[in-house]
Structure formats: C-alpha cells, structure tokens
C-alpha cells in the first residue's frame, strides 16, 4: 500500500487508530493465500509491527512502544476476526521465533557528515551493492558484531558513531537483519577492506539520486531497496535534529548578546589590542 503517511499519522495520539491504519496496510487486504497459515500471517504481523516502530515512532514518539507480542494482542483485540487459528497468539509467536533460527546478520547504513551520501560495498561474488554486514559470532552482541564486520569490510571503526537503539530490522527469507544507522563519517577517509577476498568495491552513493533509481531494473541492490523508506525517514529526522541544534546555538548566541550576557573578550576580540 502506498498511502501518504504524514498527514494522517503525524498527530495521532491514539494507538488504536494507528493499529487500524496498520490493519488496513498490512493485514486485512492481503490475498487469502498470504494468510493461509499461522507463519505467513505472523510474517505480516511482524512487518506491521516494524512499520509501527520505524515510521510511527519516528514521526510521533509519544505513542507507546509495542513489542511484537503486545502488538499482536492489540491487533487481535481490535479485530478478532483476523485471528482464526486455534493456537494462541503468543504460543504461535514463540514457535515463529524458533523458526527464525538461522544466524542473524548485523550491518550498518553509513552516512557522511552532510547526511547526503551513503557508503555501500560490493562483494567479490555478487554484483549487488549493499551495507557492510556479517553474521554474529559466538557470544557477540548485535552492536559488537556490527562494529567488527564494518571494520573488516571497510577499515573504519564506527564505535563512536553507533547508537544501539537506532537500527532497521528485517526478516528476509528466514534471516534476521539488523542494520544500524550511523552518520558523521568523513567522506575523505581512505576505506580499505581488511579482508581483501570478500569485498570488491567500496563507494559513496548520493542518497537522493539512489532512491530515485533504486527500483529501476538496471540497478542492483540488496537490502538497501527494502529499507529505503525507513532510511529516508531517519535521514529527514536527523537533518531536522541537526537543524534544531543549529537553531538552538544561534538563538542562544543572539539572546546572550541581547541580554548582555556575553563576556567582554567574546564581544570584542580586538578591544585589548585597541586599548594598548
């Protein structure tokens, strides 16, 4: 579904109204074969819950967080007809997560300081461009895995740039992907893979340009295309925050001047010289 998001969802304060929206977008208008089994239906529930997290929480942070279990329970409460199975929803969800037992993959969407470009890699075996990423090693948490894989593949350490709460998650063909969102990486850094036989190319891509052409048949991308919308939204939010920060600093400067709060040296750096 491609309903424009902003006007209707932006100012909603009622979770139920949002859930109704998501029911329409993800669940009740599916073709019957898409809901023909518990697993298939749960995949749609999961997508809807990620939509909730990605979009709605970014636009309207006042809405309460909902993990998949409570999300599902609320959906079913709103529309009981949606759950026609004999098994209970939380039991089904348990089985569902067991089903997703293949090794999770973590990676990073890396943006420059201007938030205009994204760094992508191409492997030696495939012609698709994607995020630097890799599988979790033993006893490694998501963030550590991401930092390690990114370092191996592009030679840059994102420890100081990564936020464990900022990521996009997707299940694709049974694999769980978590892509952390990172910005402020210097464009002129000399990126080099530490593992030379895996990565063939590393390149900055203009994000706006890429989003316009990403669904054309000639471009070859993996993961990036399925995450392009939350990426755009996150970028917009980051720019907004950056804009706000600049505005705050500017306003502070001006207020201090107005109220006479600035120290003398700051106001007139040449004063001492003139006074000599």
């Amino acid at each position: 579904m491609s309903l424009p998001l902003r006007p209707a969802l932006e100012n909603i304060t009622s979770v139920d109204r949002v859930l109704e929206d998501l029911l329409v977008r993800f669940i009740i208008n599916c073709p019957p074969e898409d809901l023909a089994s518990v697993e298939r239906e749960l995949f749609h529930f999961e997508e809807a819950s990620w939509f909730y997290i990605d979009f709605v929480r970014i636009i309207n942070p006042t809405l309460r967080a909902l993990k998949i279990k409570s999300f599902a329970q609320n959906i079913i409460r709103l529309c009981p007809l949606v759950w026609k199975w004999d098994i209970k929803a939380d039991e089904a969800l348990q089985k569902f997560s067991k089903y997703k037992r293949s090794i999770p993959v973590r990676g990073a969407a890396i943006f420059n300081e201007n938030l205009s470009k994204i760094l992508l890699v191409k492997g030696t075996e495939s012609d698709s461009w994607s995020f630097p990423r890799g599988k979790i090693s033993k006893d490694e948490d998501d963030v550590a895995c991401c930092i390690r894989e990114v370092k191996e593949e592009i030679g840059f350490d994102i420890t100081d740039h990564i936020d464990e709460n900022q990521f996009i998650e997707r299940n694709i063909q049974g694999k769980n992907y978590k892509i952390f969102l990172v910005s402020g990486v210097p464009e002129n850094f000399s990126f080099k893979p530490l593992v030379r036989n895996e990565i063939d190319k590393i390149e900055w891509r203009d994000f706006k340009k890429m989003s316009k052409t990403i669904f054309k048949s000639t471009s070859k991308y993996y993961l990036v295309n399925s995450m392009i919308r939350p990426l755009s939204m996150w970028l917009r939010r980051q720019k907004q925050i950056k804009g706000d920060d600049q505005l705050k600093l500017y306003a502070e400067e001006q207020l201090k001047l107005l109220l006479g709060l600035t120290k003398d040296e700051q106001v007139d750096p040449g004063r001492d010289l003139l006074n000599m």
Partner: protein
Amino acid sequence: MATKNMEAAATTMDIYRKALNFNVIGRYDPKIKQLLFHT
C-alpha cells in the same frame, strides 16, 4: 464441516474489512471517502 459458519464469518470479515478500509483511507483524503461512499 461448519460451512455455514465459515461463510458467515467470511461475510462478516468482508463487511468489517470494507468498513475499516473506508474509515482509514478517509483520514488521508476526504475526496476518497466520498468516492468510496458512492461505490
């Protein structure tokens, strides 16, 4: 089996689906709401 029940449930679901679609889509564009109303 309980085909009559299944049919009834399907029809109810269908009605609910149409109603919910109508309400949600209407929030985005009042014009659509008018259009749906006449369909």
